[in-house]
């Protein structure tokens, strides 16, 4: 499959350095799946779907900056949807999002709500002005927001919000955010590991399950193909939260 050309139909600013790009085609993704976004002449990078036809991107480096220079009418290449995506289970679900990681959860929550599930959301951001998709989540059900600097909602990291909830109330928990935030949550809630689906990041080079750059220790799970959604109990037995490999394959810290 060659990359499919797609026109950006609309660009919306969600927060400082976070924008949503609506594409001219619905690739019929499952929430939690991703696409490889080809910014021609620059790079091809993984992006989760934040809706059936949209991605929500934080500008962090060369490719995302190049993308931010593109307006409606620009053309990008798409390869996807890729990966396994989240699996909806049970009646009552909890979404735990951190920063731009909330984006795929908004998409998931909407799918869940349309199927009649009860959706609760716990979202952590650095500061008030980093909050995204507040209305989307509020339309789904109860929402708890934390900010690191206390400028909005509960002060502290997302895990601070856990105290307000009884995780036993939820049939399934879905989490996406910076690796240390996810680690923080899942390591505190080990007993819920089997019912927690985490959408994680690794360095994807091929996004086709063939090159090995995204493989998790110790079992070699190919995150690009067998993930990016992996249950927390499996993550707790892996490298997750301890180290991750960068573009060269060398181990490094779990930034972000």
């Amino acid at each position: 499959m060659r990359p499919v050309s797609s026109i950006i139909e609309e660009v919306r600013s969600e927060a400082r350095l976070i924008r949503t790009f609506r594409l001219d085609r619905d690739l019929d993704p499952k929430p939690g799946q991703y696409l490889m976004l080809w910014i021609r002449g620059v790079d091809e990078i993984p992006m989760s779907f934040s809706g059936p036809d949209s991605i929500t991107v934080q500008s962090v480096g060369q490719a995302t900056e190049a993308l931010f220079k593109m307006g409606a009418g620009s053309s990008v290449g798409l390869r996807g949807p890729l990966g396994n995506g989240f699996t909806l289970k049970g009646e009552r679900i909890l979404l735990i999002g951190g920063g731009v990681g909330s984006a795929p959860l908004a998409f998931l929550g909407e799918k869940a709500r349309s199927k009649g599930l009860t959706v609760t959301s716990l979202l952590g951001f650095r500061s008030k002005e980093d909050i995204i998709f507040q209305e989307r989540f509020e339309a789904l059900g109860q929402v708890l927001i934390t900010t690191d600097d206390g400028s909005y909602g509960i002060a502290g990291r997302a895990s601070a919000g856990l105290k307000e909830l009884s995780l036993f109330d939820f049939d399934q928990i879905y989490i996406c955010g910076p690796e240390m935030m996810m680690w923080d949550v899942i390591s505190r809630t080990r007993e819920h590991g089997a019912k927690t689906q985490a959408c994680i990041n690794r360095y994807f080079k091929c996004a086709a399950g063939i090159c090995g750059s995204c493989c998790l220790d110790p079992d070699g799970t190919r995150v690009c193909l067998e993930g990016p959604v992996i249950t927390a109990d499996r993550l707790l037995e892996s490298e997750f939260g301890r180290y991750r490999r960068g573009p060269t394959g060398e181990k490094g810290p779990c930034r972000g």
Partner: protein
Amino acid sequence: MPSLSIHAGGLDLANPVLLAAGILGTTGASLCRAARAGAGGVVTKSVGSTPREGHPGPCIVAVQGGLLNAMGLPNPSYRHFQEEIDAGRRSGVPVIASIFGSSPAEFAQIARALQADAFELNLSCPHAEKYGSELGRYPDMVESVTGAVKAAADVPVWVKLTPNTADILELGLAAQRAGASAVVAINTLKAMAIDIETGYPILGNRFGGLSGPAIKPVAVRSVYDLASQLEIPVIGVGGISSWEDAVEMIMAGAKAVQVGTALQEGYGIFEKIALGLQNYLERKSMTLEDLCGLAWRMQH
């Protein structure tokens, strides 16, 4: 059941179906996974002397009958790779370290520093400047790199050859002269794809290497040309995705085969091929030895 174990290229292998270089060979864990799935041996991602991030994306494009890739030899350098090899060796199957460099001395430097069951010299990657086939297209260079690694290492040395040449046999003979224990054929064919909406070459590196079923007939021919003339064994690679393909490659003269692109289908491929091979040998009452090079013996 007929035995699939063989001695090839200086290694004892429980079966002749190996993991090809650069395919899920970046980490010890994924090497072990291939071994657990039934690979008779595993080749690592090619490692060099300094860390490389590889080419910008896209790094792969699916094309009809195959895959184009231009990873660009990303690797953490040999200095950070011994632990991956060690982890891979704990699987129990031989780990062949694929290495690359821009000169005989650079190859030798890496070979001296790494402990592995064998080395495979990447003299054939078609899309990394100063490396791979840029050296490997010259028989003299193949000979001197192989010789330098032979002198530096006390394990078998395999030489992986490029099909991007008018005469792959010249390259194989050069490797043999310098003391290689086996040649591995083939690496990918230099190739490219262009995005017809915009004119951009799709691969970040503009061009890359073609692998998969599309290149199998070229690989079979290369193995045939080499195996009928060389005294050292040939390891066949290129487009193998079924036991039938493995039989064909062995009939062309391969002692063992490697599987790359077909891993996209999943790790089950190793068992599928080994089992099919075994059933075939049983049905035909043949041994792997009988099969190897059968095509040269069937004369018109």
